[in-house]
């Protein structure tokens, strides 16, 4: 199994030095923050991952697999079985044609649906995979399939989440290696350190990072802290032997580090010190920040502050639009893509301590459980469709690149020579496990759990 070649270390000695500083004052109040930060500042992981889930099954005609409405006209429906329906959105914020942006004289090789909006300007960091065969029309099966890279048994997930695989293999030295925000997370073979901290809202994360409000008299706190620093007895050592005690002791040191660093303040976007975050992500002056923009700000903070290596997030929902108008789907997608665009803006303009920008150290996978039918149903909505597409961005993948395609007849999943990406009737389907294998391979991680080869043309 390959390991991270340059794991970042939060030195134990540094932590102990910092704790000594903490011991000089109260436990949770009046901490020598500057001194602590100098000795025990958290380091961002050298390689970060973001898994962005669009919940409900997206209309890929509006996202990453658009069609030209002048070609796929209502008159040709019986021939193409595809109706882009961009004119039905009827909102000036959405183009009526696929977007093909241009930047610094370079034209995008990727066409985007109208809902992608501002995110499309980051085409120079993207690979889009089209024509993925999801083999399911069930929500749970679809998102678990993409979550683990293994086809579920019935609707039950198999294997570990990809984020768990990543932190299990990297074993990063960050306080909370993996955060799963309103998304399922699985671990079937790694120790507990690989488990994601699963939160349903931003407040859950704050509760983890903030100091307890149940404090004792400051001097008693100090005495308690001093007592804990003393050497333990033989009996205590025996209970703490062989791993569990050392892990617990390290965890307690980490807790002190996290609390002393007041990492919760990094996620309290209402604070004056986070005005720049509020401004960048368009957040209100007071929380809670449980909307798409708030979630994107949370991702950026977790990665940039060195709190997490992987963030899996249910960024936006409301996409299961069997009824209603095209505008509902487009609006819901747009909120997610706009937040994602701001996140990418942020990551590509923030320097990483190891050099380059954060985006050069981050791989983002954007997916949904399946797509929606290329034809509009009798209720004005779209139903579940087998073929799917996804977006890969950032480190380890080729940029401004499209792999695969869906068919021009009913957007059927295609068959391809997966070694080259060329469409061929004798080729294979692109499956979610190919995407997950590619994500793992992009960081030189072991992808054998997927039992497939990665899509090598995508790898940078």
């Amino acid at each position: 199994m390959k390991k991270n070649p340059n794991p970042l270390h939060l030195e134990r000695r540094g932590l102990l030095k910092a704790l000594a500083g903490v011991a000089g004052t109260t436990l949770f109040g009046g901490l020598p923050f500057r001194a602590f930060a100098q000795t025990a500042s958290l380091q961002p992981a050298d390689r970060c991952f973001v898994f962005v889930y669009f919940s409900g099954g997206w209309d890929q005609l509006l996202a990453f697999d658009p069609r030209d409405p002048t070609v796929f006209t209502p008159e040709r429906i019986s021939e193409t079985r595809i109706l882009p329906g961009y004119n039905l959105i009827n909102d000036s914020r959405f183009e009526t044609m696929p977007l093909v942006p241009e930047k610094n004289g370079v034209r995008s090789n990727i066409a985007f649906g109208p809902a992608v909006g501002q995110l499309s300007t980051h085409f120079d960091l993207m690979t889009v995979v089209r024509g993925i065969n999801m083999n399911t029309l069930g929500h749970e099966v679809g998102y678990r399939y993409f979550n683990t890279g293994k086809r579920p048994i019935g609707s039950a997930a198999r294997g570990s989440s990809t984020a768990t695989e990543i932190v299990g293999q990297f074993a990063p030295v960050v306080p909370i290696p993996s955060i799963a925000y309103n998304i399922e997370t699985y671990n079937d073979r790694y120790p507990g350190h690989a488990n994601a901290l699963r939160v349903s809202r931003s407040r859950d994360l704050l509760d983890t990072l903030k100091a307890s409000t149940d404090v004792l008299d400051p001097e008693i706190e100090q005495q308690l802290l001093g007592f804990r620093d003393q050497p333990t007895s033989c009996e205590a050592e025996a209970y703490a032997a062989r791993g569990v005690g050392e892990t617990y002791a390290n965890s307690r040191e980490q807790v002190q580090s996290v609390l002393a660093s007041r990492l919760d303040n990094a996620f309290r976007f209402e604070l004056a010190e986070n005005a720049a975050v509020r401004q960048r992500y368009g957040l209100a002056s007071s929380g809670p920040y449980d909307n798409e923009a708030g979630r994107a700000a949370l991702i950026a903070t977790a990665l940039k502050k060195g709190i997490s290596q992987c963030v899996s997030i249910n960024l936006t929902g409301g996409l299961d639009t069997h009824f209603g108008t095209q505008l509902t789907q487009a609006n819901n997608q747009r909120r997610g893509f706009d937040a994602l665009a701001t996140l990418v803006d942020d990551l590509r303009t923030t320097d990483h301590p190891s050099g380059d920008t954060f985006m050069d150290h981050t791989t983002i996978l954007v997916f949904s459980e399946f797509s929606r039918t290329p034809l509009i149903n009798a209720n004005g909505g779209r139903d579940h469709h087998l073929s799917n597409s996804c977006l890969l961005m950032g480190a380890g993948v080729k940029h401004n690149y499209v792999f695969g395609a869906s068919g021009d007849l009913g957007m059927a999943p295609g068959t391809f020579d997966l070694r080259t990406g060329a469409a061929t009737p004798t080729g294979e389907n692109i499956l979610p496990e190919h995407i997950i294998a590619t994500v793992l391979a992009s960081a030189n991680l072991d992808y054998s759990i997927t039992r497939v080869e990665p899509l090598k043309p995508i790898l940078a």
Partner: protein
Amino acid sequence: MRRLVAVALLALAPACSQEEKAPAPPMEGQLEPIPNPHGSVTPLPDPELQEGSVGRAPRRITVAQLQTSILTTVGIPWAELDGGLGTTLGRADYANIVTENIEPNLVFAKFLEDGARKVCKARARAELDIVDPTARTLSRNIPNLRDAATNLTKLSDAQVTELLVYLSTRFWGAPLSGDELTRWKSLFTQVAARAETVRARDQAFAAMCIAMMTDPRFLTY
């Protein structure tokens, strides 16, 4: 030589005859003897090969065990464990997570500290109003805690020892002794003096409770 061989055979004869002796048939009403189902005893592994200890490695208690332990030792439950916090601390839901995570990781250490503070402070405060010492858990051998005449700094060495031995047995199932007892007594003396100074007697017991509940002996077995 022949004589020597004959003597040797004669010496071995009783032993051979004893080994070959068939067990007496069971008498009326007597159970038939059964062979030892456990076979031969496997010797314990060399402690030197296991970092000085034998047997299985200690494990962290599960969330259910933690919940019961807190209720048993302190006397009041940590209510949040019934909600989402139990899952956060590692409890399996048998839908998405089928194996309980018993690693004492950062999240566990953080919330155990929070939980210890919550229940210990609440219990210590409540015990101030419990007149009968035997109904208390954290201050079992201290007379009336509300009494102005009671002063934790004036407790005799024997009383402090009794208190700490009681608490350690209650929290860990093992009484404090030796040098470690001296260290804990020193802690109690310090926190008791401060608690008396700030007129918050309950904080001394809360501090001892927090220290014991966050000790590895409380959360491992």
